[in-house]
């Protein structure tokens, strides 16, 4: 089976290449950017293209979207880290049949490649139900966005303010602040206060 690998971390790509070759795959090309991946895939028509989400110039999902037209027999698999938050629904809409986290094992990646080559769709299990359901109903499976008020509360929490302080600053009751806080944690699927602060830093709502 001929596969294309695209990731901008060279050593990561070389490592995956070694793994895949050991498993009997033929790595017909290695790309470091989105446009390079597109060129190689359009020239070589691999059976499967493994695309890192976070690449310079063009991300993995955009590459996949293009390949639907320019290399329709090439199946595409998205490789992403949790921090990148690549949209599973967007990947599905771009015709991708595989979605794998970098925190999964080599065996997971290999079985996904094999299944995708056979025509199946294999998304990481905890995404699968949500993403497919969202496509089905047309609803968004993405986390519900925060309201403006919730954003204000989040920023104040991340800056280290007490509930009382926040209540005072925003002219709310402490009870209301607490319930905003719970709602925020629910929406962001976060269970620990520390994660709220990291979310705020990641989204550049505050500087660290």
């Amino acid at each position, binding site marked *: 089976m001929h596969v294309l690998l695209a990731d901008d971390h060279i050593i990561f790509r070389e*490592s995956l290449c070694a793994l895949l070759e*050991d498993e009997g795959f033929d790595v017909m090309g290695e790309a470091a950017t989105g446009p390079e991946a597109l060129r190689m895939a359009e020239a070589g028509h691999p059976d499967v293209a493994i695309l890192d989400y976070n690449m310079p110039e063009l991300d993995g999902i955009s590459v996949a979207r293009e390949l639907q037209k320019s290399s329709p027999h090439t199946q595409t698999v998205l490789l992403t880290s949790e921090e990148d938050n690549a949209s599973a629904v967007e990947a599905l809409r771009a015709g991708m049949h595989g979605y794998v986290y970098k925190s999964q094992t080599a065996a997971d990646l290999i079985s996904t490649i094999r299944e995708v080559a056979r025509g199946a769709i294999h998304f990481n299990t905890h995404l699968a139900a949500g993403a497919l359901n969202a496509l089905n109903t047309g609803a968004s499976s993405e986390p519900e966005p925060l309201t403006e008020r919730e954003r204000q509360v989040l920023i104040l929490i991340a800056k280290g303010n007490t509930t009382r302080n926040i209540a005072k600053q925003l002219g709310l009751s402490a009870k209301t602040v607490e319930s905003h806080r719970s709602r925020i944690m629910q929406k962001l699927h976060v269970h620990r*206060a520390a994660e709220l602060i990291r979310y705020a830093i990641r989204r550049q709502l505050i500087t660290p």
Partner: protein
Amino acid sequence: MQQRILLADDHPMFRQGLKALLEREGFQVVAEASDGHEAVRLARQLNPTIAVLDIGMPLLNGIDAARQIMKQNVGIQVVLLTMYEEEAYVLEALRAGIRGYVLKAQAANDLLGAIREIQRGSVYLSPGISKTVVDAYVGKSELPVDPLTDRERQVLQLVAEGKTTKEVAEVLGLSAKTADSHRTRIMQKLEIHETAGLVRYAVRRGFIKA
């Protein structure tokens, strides 16, 4: 003598691929870890001659893991393999006595070169790490003293990851009372009075990713 390598990275597929690459080059990979504590434990149990560590790992980051490993495994060579190229990390690594610092943006050859160089007693930094970093280190006047002890840094990382005092105690094998007094001491030293501040400090220092 064949080199025995310990690999630590929180992305299993990368670690497994890197193992395949290193074995092709004649190295023996004797252990794989996905967090810093596991790396320290396996180093103690299996006596590797070389440790290749990612920096950004949960529970204990690569630089702090390296500090412990270098104390317990005398003579071991440590290389950090990371995507972080910022000056702060490089200086922290050099301050800890780590002699190899390799960027993931580089090719495997760079890592192999680093392993060779540090065995010869040199310091190896990937191309792409600015010269000013090296100058700052050599000048030494730029390096501020770390306010925290090793143990305090370990506690801080766990607190910033959202662990309760009880969980911190469990991970580090301390009593809850000791963990709590470390936490208090950290807040005193840093003049930070709430968790949010500790998380932000940890992100700034590179103990955790945002």
